[in-house]
C-alpha cells in the first residue's frame, strides 16, 4: 500500500485514518517531505505549525 498524506494535518500515513487528527481524509497525491525530529527546536516545524515529531508532506492535493 502506497503512502498517503492527511489532508488536514499533512502527516504521512499508511492507513486511510490519520492516527493524529483522526480524520479519514488522506490523499495519495502529495509532494515534498519534511521530517520533524525535534519540533521544539525546529524553525521549519514552527513555520509549518507542527508540534509533534513525524514525517509531513509539504503539499497535499
Amino acid at each position: 500500500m502506497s503512502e498517503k498524506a492527511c489532508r488536514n494535518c499533512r502527516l504521512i500515513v499508511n492507513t486511510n485514518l490519520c492516527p493524529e487528527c483522526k480524520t479519514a481524509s488522506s490523499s495519495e497525491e502529495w509532494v515534498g517531505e519534511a521530517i520533524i525530529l525535534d519540533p521544539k527546536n525546529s524553525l521549519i516545524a514552527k513555520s509549518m505549525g507542527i508540534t509533534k515529531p513525524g514525517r509531513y508532506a509539504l503539499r497535499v492535493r
Partner: protein
Amino acid sequence: MSDKKNIEPIIFAVKTTAGQEKNAAEMIAIKARMNKLPIASILAPENLRGYIFVEAPGPHVVEEATSDVKHVKSRVPGRVQFSDIEKYLTTKPIIEELDVGYIVEITGGPFKGMRARITRINKVKQEATIELLEAIFTLPITVHADYLKLIEKASKEVKEETGK
C-alpha cells in the same frame, strides 16, 4: 550560572543524487534517531532536485549524520538563511502562478506527461482550460490547477493573440 543551553538551530544544505531526495532524507533521519544526534528536522522540497536541507545545531552534526549514507554526496559549505527556504514551506495555490498562454505540463490523469497551452483560467474553481500541444486536432480540456506544472511563461505576442 544557568546550565540551560540555548541551542539555536542552523539550516544546512546537503547535496544528494537527483531524484533520491526523499530516500536520502529518510535514511539521515533513521541514522539521527539511532545515534541520538540533535537534528531538528530534514526538508526535501518538491521542486529542488539534488538538494535537501538539514536543521542542526552545527555542521559537525550534519557531517556525522550524512557520512556513509546512500544517495548523499556532500554538505554544501556555509549556512542557509531561513528566508531562502521559506518559499518551499508556504503552499501558494498553483493557479496564482498560471495565466492564459502559458505552457504547462500535465502531472496527473490520462494525459500525464503531455504539454499544453492554457486558453482559459477559472481562479474561483481553480481550473484551467488547456489545449494539448501534441494533439493533432484542437481538443480543449478543463483540469484542476493542481495537475498542472508551469513550464514556460507566454511571450507578449502569444498573450496578444489569445487576448484578441
